[in-house]
């Protein structure tokens, strides 16, 4: 029928209820008085007329009630009275209400906090124009097992002009740069992209302008755009900053614009957010001549043309790659199967942390369920106490539906109060909570409480209210009238109906607790395995520090341009480090163990293809390894064991025969049946480059993270092939904090423009590399602990309640000769049996949930027998303990008192 009209009048009533109520009365009064006036005209006295009119009208209140019912507003009135009733009940049971609201606040608060992270990281679109069209571009060589290889300028041009897929593409160089000329030299994260980088992302500057085609320079442009953060920190938010010059790695750059506060570069970085943004044409100095085979570019992102799906775009790119392989056979060896792949940018940014966040979300939702089951239990206990109230209501004509509604309203009131408290807690403590979240989770700075988060929190509150309200509500509705009154009258208690419902609640609570504990057990075992994992060296008493030599675009301004000059620096650095009192040994490495987690960043050690002398190209499938440049004493400092051959010596320098040391993984993989010592290898495909001889084999060192195995490494001497990113490793018994000033002093006495960063013990480095694993394991572990606590409270409460209700029965049993042990056993059996059922159910469910966690585990199988054995036993023990106390109380029942109580 006329739904809109009804809805409107309904809303009108809800909004203006009081005014409409007054109008209703005015209307009735008008009627009565008009009628009375007529009666007076017919000759009645005023007083009598009024009386007569009132009588003829009938009961005003009941008519008003009917009028309210006529506009369908009665449920609203009833809701109000239910709420007032519920409020009085909570007020009367302050202890119960406090416990319920507090646990709910905890549960909902934790959910809100975790969900706000999930929302920011996984759900919200990237904060750019049409983010769905942004993709990351990968160049792969599946034939030789390489992914995300570098690409050349002509290949970049192909993407832009030939592929007919992209509106814009940009290579992305991410890396740290040394900012000088503004006080203490500072290390900044920087990004260099193409001139369309900003227009591709759809950014508008805060002040000044961003790059455009007019800035085009074949090499690097002499301009720079800075972040809001840098602008505030280094320039005090000076609006006249435009046109000023800053030096990055010695290159003078003119500031042309400042980015808006919210802008963030969409990519992984070595550490922190990029703050300086350069642009270049990538085709002239400092870049080599653009040739198809000169692959110097890393990390491409692109914006798809409108209307193109990912699959269509991918198909075109695959076709183009095939055509290119055909057109330029010299640049694309057939066995490499060079190809192009695109992935949604969002996926490449957050894909890695998705499993962890989803596990956390799952855990926190389980917790709130356990919380609500516990409250359901409390409410159910109360509902049994209210049986008489319910029975009387039923007897007086309340409908069962009406009573269910009342019980649900009470639970909803409770859950919404708890939810509001939880949301308030989460909002208030979010900043504090985020400090514990490992910073390598992307997009953390976008975390905030928005409508989505609030909506989720509200949903969770309502769901919990339903979960814990439904049991007592149904119970109230089912209550058989006569028996309830009689039972209530007799004051006996543990009716089988409530009993069964409460049993189900306890069983589910335990099952949930098992799931959480198994998850926590697996994560904690993973963490323990990782810490106990031999990283291939001895990390104690090692202090590390990072330096990055400047990489100016003008080669004349580069004091570290070539290998001999860098070798000089390295030697001076090592001499000074060894001279620090307390330092026994010093060495240099390009990649600290456990830190090479972003190989595609500039300075990250990427996996490279290589060739083995005298091995036919066709048979050498999958030849790739990470190249790490080290100084001679590196293995000695780390106490890594050299298995065969020799370490590098000071003599392995530029101009001498090139040498290499391989690790066990490389040896097993590429020389499974022969001796690699003395064999020769060469990185890249350039056959004019000289070979390097394998002179030693070292035990595997976990360079790429403690949880990554089997990556082949080839070490080369830093005096023969050095990089600009280097870390010093010092063997010393002194703590890092004590050494830091001296390390800094010594390095800056070589070159005052060199910032020193990340001074830390090696153990600290390894520890940080596991930060996000530790975070999730700790969190899930904490939730599991909470779940066990709540479950045992549940069991305890149930049995204590039973003992109280059945004290008469216990008294009779004891009077008839039952021994205390029998009584004890009776209640213990009940508790343990319930726990047993819950645990078995939980184990079955855990078998599923654990498989879903497989990607988060290391060294532990999802169905790890130890975890699956210990968790049930532990919970059973806890359940037995929780049952023991109420059971023992049952044995203290004095039969005389219990019987007389009746």
């Amino acid at each position, binding site marked *: *029928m*006329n739904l*809109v*009209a*009804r809805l409107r*009048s*309904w809303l009108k009533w809800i909004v203006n209820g009081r005014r409409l109520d007054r*109008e*209703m009365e*005015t*209307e*009735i009064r*008008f*009627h009565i*008085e*008009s*009628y009375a*006036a007529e009666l007076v005209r017919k000759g009645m006295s005023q007083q009598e007329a009024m009386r007569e009119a009132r009588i*003829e*009208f*009938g*009961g*005003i209140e*009941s*008519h008003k009630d*009917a*009028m*309210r*019912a*006529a*506009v*369908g507003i009665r449920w609203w009135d009833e809701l109000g009275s239910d709420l007032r009733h519920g409020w009085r009940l909570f007020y009367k049971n302050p202890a119960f209400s406090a416990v319920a609201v507090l646990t709910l606040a905890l549960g909902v608060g934790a959910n809100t906090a975790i969900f706000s992270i999930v929302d920011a990281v996984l759900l919200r679109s990237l904060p750019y124009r049409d983010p769905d069209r942004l993709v990351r571009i990968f160049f792969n060589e599946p034939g030789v097992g390489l992914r995300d290889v570098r690409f050349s300028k002509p290949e970049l041009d192909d993407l832009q002009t030939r592929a007919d897929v992209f509106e814009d593409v940009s290579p992305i160089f991410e890396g740290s740069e040394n900012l000088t000329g503004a006080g203490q030299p500072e290390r900044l994260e920087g990004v260099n992209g193409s001139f369309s980088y900003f227009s591709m992302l759809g950014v508008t500057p805060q002040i000044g302008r961003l790059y455009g085609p007019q800035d085009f320079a074949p090499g690097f442009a002499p301009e720079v755009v800075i972040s809001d953060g840098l602008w505030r920190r280094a320039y005090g938010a000076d609006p006249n900053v435009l046109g000023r010059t800053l030096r990055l790695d010695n290159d003078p750059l003119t500031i042309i614009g400042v980015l808006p506060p919210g802008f963030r570069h969409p990519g992984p970085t070595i550490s922190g957010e990029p703050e300086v943004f350069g642009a270049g044409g990538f085709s002239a100095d400092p870049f080599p001549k653009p040739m198809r085979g000169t692959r110097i570019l890393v990390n491409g992102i692109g914006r798809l043309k409108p209307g193109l799906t990912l699959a269509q775009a991918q198909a075109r790119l695959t076709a183009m790659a095939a055509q290119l392989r055909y057109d330029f056979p010299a640049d694309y060896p057939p066995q490499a199967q060079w190809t192009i792949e695109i992935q949604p940018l969002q996926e490449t940014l957050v894909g890695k942390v998705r499993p962890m966040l989803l596990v956390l979300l799952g855990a926190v939702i389980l917790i709130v369920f356990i919380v609500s089951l516990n409250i359901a239990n409390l409410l159910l206990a109360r509902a049994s106490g209210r049986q008489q109230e319910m029975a009387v209501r039923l007897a007086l004509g309340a409908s069962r539906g009406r009573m269910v509604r009342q019980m649900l309203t009470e639970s909803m009131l409770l859950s919404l109060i708890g939810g509001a408290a939880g949301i308030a807690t989460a909002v208030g403590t979010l900043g504090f909570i985020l400090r514990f979240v490992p910073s390598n989770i992307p997009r953390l700075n976008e975390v905030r409480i928005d409508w989505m988060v609030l909506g989720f929190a509200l949903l969770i509150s309502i769901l919990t209210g339903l979960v814990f309200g439904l049991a007592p509500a149904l119970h109230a509705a089912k209550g058989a009238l006569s028996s309830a009154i009689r039972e209530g009258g007799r004051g006996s208690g543990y009716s089988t109906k409530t009993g069964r419902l409460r049993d189900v609640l306890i069983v589910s609570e335990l099952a949930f607790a098992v799931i959480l504990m198994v998850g926590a057990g697996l994560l904690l075992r993973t963490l323990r395995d990782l810490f106990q994992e031999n990283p291939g060296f001895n990390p104690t008493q090692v202090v590390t520090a990072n330096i990055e030599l400047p990489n100016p675009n003008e080669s004349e301004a580069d004091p570290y341009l070539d290998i001999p000059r860098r070798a000089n620096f390295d030697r001076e650095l090592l001499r000074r480090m060894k001279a620090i009192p307390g330092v026994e040994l010093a060495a240099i490495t390009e990649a600290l163990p456990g830190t090479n987690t972003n190989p595609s960043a500039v300075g990250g050690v990427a996996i490279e293809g290589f060739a083995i002398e005298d091995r036919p190209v066709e048979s050498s499938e999958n030849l790739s390894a990470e190249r790490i440049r080290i100084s001679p004493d590196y293995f000695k400092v780390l106490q890594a064991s050299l298995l065969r051959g020799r370490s590098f010596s000071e003599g392995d320098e530029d101009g001498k025969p090139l040498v290499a040391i391989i690790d066990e993984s490389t040896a097993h993989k590429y020389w499974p049946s022969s001796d690699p010592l003395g064999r020769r290898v060469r990185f890249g495909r350039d056959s004019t480059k000289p070979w390097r001889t394998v002179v030693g084999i070292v035990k595997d060192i976990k360079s790429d993270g403690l949880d990554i195995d089997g990556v082949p490494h080839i070490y080369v001497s830093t005096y023969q092939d050095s990089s600009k990113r280097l870390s010093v490793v010092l063997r010393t018994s002194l703590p890092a904090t004590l050494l830091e000033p001296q390390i800094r002093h010594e390095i800056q006495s070589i070159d005052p423009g060199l910032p020193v960063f990340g001074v830390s013990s090696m153990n600290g480095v390894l520890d940080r590399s596991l930060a996000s694993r530790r975070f999730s394991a700790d969190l899930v572990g904490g939730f599991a602990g909470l779940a066990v606590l709540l479950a045992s409270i549940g069991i305890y409460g149930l049995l204590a309640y039973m003992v109280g209700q059945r004290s008469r029965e216990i008294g009779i049993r004891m009077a008839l000769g039952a021994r205390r042990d029998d009584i004890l056993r009776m209640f213990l059996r009940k508790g343990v049996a319930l726990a047993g059922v819950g645990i078995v159910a939980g184990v079955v469910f855990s078998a599923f949930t654990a498989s879903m966690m497989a990607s988060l585990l290391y060294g532990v199988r999802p169905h790890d027998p130890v975890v699956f054995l210990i968790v049930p036993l532990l919970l059973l023990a806890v359940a037995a303990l929780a049952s023991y106390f109420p059971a023992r109380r049952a044995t203290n029942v004095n039969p005389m008192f219990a019987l007389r109580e009746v």
Partner: protein
Amino acid sequence: MGKQIDLLQGTLDMLILKAVSLGPLHGYGVLLRIQQISGEQLEIQQGSLYPALYRLEHQGWIAGEWGESDNKRKAKFYSLTTAGRRKLHAETEKWNRMTSLIAAILRTTSEEI
């Protein structure tokens, strides 16, 4: 005033719609008009008029508006909406069909079967 007839179940709504279709009326006016048209033959329980008015207003068939009565007092006047006019029309049709049907049934003599 002769013996009044009790209102048939469910016909009050129709009578109210008819009454206000002749011009806006306040509640008491509706009562008077129905009694007047029926020649004082119908008995309407005065109080039960209002729930019916509210229901009709809620369903959007009549619209209430506050105005001034003949004796210069504030009163709520109801008038028929377009939807109400359609409803009244449909109800009248139904009523006529039903009464003629029932009348025909009641007229039936034994020969006609």
